[in-house]
């Protein structure tokens, strides 16, 4: 037992105690806080000991060496603690995924969403849907297996309506922003003709000098991306080559222009720094370079600003934060990742399939498919691949 070996005793459960850690021959390693969590009422469901050492690399290495010397002890594999918690039934799959996202969360928004999933918000929701489908299934099965007995009623009129309502609930969830968006950030592409001030604005927004700026048209030839958090909201800003088709662009710049165009398609929002009305639909009209002589204001500018002087920049930033918050999962609201989205879509499709059917047998089959999708969503029927993908994402230990 690691605690007895190093600390000389097992402290009372779930209470932080000070202990002198010694190696096999009695040499003092560190004076540290130790904690003892007896299973099964702990995170993984198994006995758990924690050593809170001083942070020096040598201290940690010495403690690890002493631990490794104890027979049967080894380093945890990537994701092992979560895997064990899952294996012991302490958490379900959606919660495990939430935990993974929580560990990977880099912004406040991502943290809140991951926390909601890790806390079982999605699982509870799925459980609720599953219950509803089970109820519907039971009704159909009753009609199929007991129709010749007393309550030989056909399906009630509200039945199809109930299926439709459930399908609609699922569709609403499916229409919500996905959790990957939290990792990728709200994608803002700066576009416009050469020399419109895109790179200067890019540097100002990302508070960096990542993009080279110069008065020479066509300075930016490739796509530059940078992720930053503004007000706790993750953004990815993309600076692009100026769009021109005057035949003056050389081969490299032309490739850059093509890339810029493809970026426009991927954007959540385009900041258009070019002539009024020349941007893609939905783009924000930005009247940049307001500090310059000969500045032409836009009549319907969303924002007028100067990245050099900083004028109007604050307004743009808060405008961006507001837009991003609407497009990203709400804080504390469980968000679906791609895998969960796919499963939920299956369930929704099955339910929608059931609506058009009159044969209760086929309705029952579609409901079974929906149940199966829910089971897979929270990991009741799970495959090795999915687990590998899931647990491969964790770094050492927790």
């Amino acid at each position, binding site marked *: 037992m690691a605690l007895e070996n190093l600390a000389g005793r097992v402290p009372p459960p779930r209470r932080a105690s000070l202990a002198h850690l010694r190696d096999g021959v009695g040499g003092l390693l560190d004076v540290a806080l130790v904690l003892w969590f007896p299973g*099964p009422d702990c995170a993984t*469901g*198994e006995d758990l000991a924690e050593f809170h050492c001083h942070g020096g690399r040598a201290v940690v290495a010495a403690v690890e060496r002493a631990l490794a010397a104890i027979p049967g002890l080894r380093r945890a594999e990537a994701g092992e603690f979560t*895997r*064990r918690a*899952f*294996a*012991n*039934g302490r958490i*379900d*799959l959606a919660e495990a995924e939430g935990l993974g996202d929580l560990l990977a969360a880099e912004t406040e928004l991502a943290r809140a969403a991951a926390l909601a999933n890790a806390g079982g918000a999605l699982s509870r929701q799925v459980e609720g849907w599953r219950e509803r489908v089970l109820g519907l299934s039971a009704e159909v*099965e009753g*009609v*199929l*297996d*007991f*129709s*010749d*007995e*007393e309550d030989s009623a056909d399906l009630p009129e509200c039945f199809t309506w109930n299926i439709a309502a459930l399908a609609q609930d699922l569709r609403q969830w499916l229409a919500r922003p996905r959790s990957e968006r939290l990792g990728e950030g709200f994608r803002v592409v700066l576009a416009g003709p050469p020399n419109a001030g895109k790179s200067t604005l890019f540097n100002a927004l990302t508070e960096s000098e990542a993009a080279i700026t110069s008065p020479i048209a066509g300075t930016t030839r490739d796509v530059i991306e940078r992720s930053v958090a503004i007000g706790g909201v993750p953004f990815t800003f993309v600076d692009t080559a100026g769009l021109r088709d005057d035949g003056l662009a050389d081969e490299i710049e032309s490739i850059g222009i093509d890339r810029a165009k493809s970026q426009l398609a991927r954007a959540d929002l385009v900041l258009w720094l070019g002539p009024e009305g020349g941007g893609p639909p939905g783009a924000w009209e930005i009247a940049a370079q307001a500090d310059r002589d000969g500045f032409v204001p836009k009549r319907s500018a969303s924002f007028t600003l100067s990245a050099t002087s900083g004028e109007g920049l604050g307004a743009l930033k808060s405008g961006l934060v507001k837009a991003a918050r609407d497009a990203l999962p709400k804080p504390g609201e469980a968000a679906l990742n791609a895998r969960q989205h796919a499963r939920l879509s299956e369930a929704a499709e099955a339910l929608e399939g059931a609506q058009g059917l009159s*044969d*209760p*047998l*086929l309705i*029952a*089959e579609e409901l*079974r*498919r929906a149940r*199966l999708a829910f089971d897979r969503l929270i*990991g*009741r*029927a*799970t*495959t*090795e691949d999915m*687990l590998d993908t899931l647990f491969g994402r964790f770094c050492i230990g927790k």
Partner: protein
Amino acid sequence: MHHYDVLVIGGGHAGVEAACAAARMGVRAALVSFDLDAIGAMSCNPAIGGLGKGHLVREVDALDGVIGRAADAGAIHYRMLNRSKGSAVWGPRVQADRVRFKAAVQRTVRAQANLTLVQGEAAALVLKSGVVAGLELADGTVLDAPRVILCTGTFLGGILYRGEERFEGGRIGENAAKRLAQQLRAADLPMARLKTGTPPRLDGRTIDWAALEEQPSDGEEWTMSPLTPRRVNPQVFCAITRTMQAGHDAIRANLHRSPLFSGAIAAAGPRYCPSIEDKIHRFGDREGHQVFLEPEGLDTHLVYPNGISTSLPVDVQETVVRTMPGCERVAIVQPGYAVEYDHIDPRALTPDLQLRAIPGLYCAGQINGTTGYEEAAAQGLVAGLEAAAAVLGKAAPQLDRANSYIAVMVDDLTLQGVTEPYRMLTARAEYRLRLRANNAATRLTGLGIEAGCIGPQRRAWWERREDVREMFHVKHSTKVHARELAELGLPVRRDHGEKALSEWLRHDGVTPAALAPWLEEVTTLDPLLAEEMAEDAAYAPYLARQDAELRDLRASEALPLPADFPYAEVPGLSNEMVERLTRAAPGTLAAAGRVPGVTPAALSALLVHARRRIAA
């Protein structure tokens, strides 16, 4: 002198199928019964088949079993239940004349090659170092056999209840196999008690049939077994009546006299087939409950009132039936009663229905906690085939949840156990779109031929049928242009292009009959097969969708878990999981997933560990 390969104890539906199946496999089989004349008796409802149950009958028949043809021989009323719904849940059901049914069973067992009938009371098993070696009869005779199948129904520790009265025994008038029961108890098998019941039998001559709604036999000519060329008996009609408030009042006033409510019977009865006192107690607000009056035979006046199983005292039974319309002056010939009996926890069995604790001993039928002739027959078939296959050192037909209700039942029983008498329901089968009562032969007879349990008559029938099926496949793949269909007046858009007939069959309004110009030639060869093939075509998209699921299932079926798998050594399995898995001893990873309460997480831990063991 008395040497056999497979010995079957009990001559009910399970015993008959077990003995005949073993004999068909070619081993020396014997059937032991108290009373050889009682072989094939129907102890309760004189009906065979129904929802889910009809599927079992057709499957047992497809493996050349007895029950389907015997049902046809006794049938005096045919009904296809659920006719208005999808064909996968149609439930063929017949009412059988008891005498004719039993006579047919007796003819079959007596004519069966390799089968000896032994009259005697099974007293005790002969065990050699814990393994079955034979059976001792009450008169001291010893029968040697390496495989023994127990099909003893409710005879095991059965007690009958009727009001305040108690009788020992399984059916009225027969002894319970007490010594054998003691021996099984001593083996420390996991046992539990269940309850079942039967209604009073009425004298049909005292029923005013004219006052009641008739339920005639189906007009069509289908039969339970495809080997029965046509219906043989005159068809009778049933009638429908119902219980009335006055009857309910009498039941309520006497509930305390029912052993179900006085506390005398604690065991669980079937929720889907409650006694009339249960119905009144639980659904008190209902005005009445439907009762089907079913004649028990052509040469008897006995009528079985389906829906009022009861253990109330005789005087109350009389009051209740006489409040039913048409039954005002009815006479009870034999009162109803409840039976409480022991059953073995079927989780103590391996998927071949062999007791893990006593190698060589198989259990089939009600002893495993099931109810119904059909469930019993199907288990008897499995035990008989498996025991014979074990003697011969070969494989029994490979049944799984995707090819038969039989396997669904065996899997449910051996993994989940029972909390009430187990009855087949179509809802228990995940893949029921492919498990139809009308395609049992397609699903199973080929497997049976491979295993060697199909007689020459059925084999010849099936091979002819396979030839016709091939012809259907060819016809169904004929490409036909939408225009041609539209010109026949079918609801198809002319610009729909060219499609195979099997695809056209999925369109609303395109029936097999409408495609007669292309299909008539083969349809006349086998109209029933034509229906089956058309359904295959209609269900095809759903079946295709299930294929991926089935691939997953078969992959995990392919990962074996030996009976002595050390669950306690699997890292990350909680004690609760270890206990559940150890008790159920699933044979494969897929089976482990169906053990109740086993989490997916536990499964993945199991998967990793099992793989590692195989690799090691």
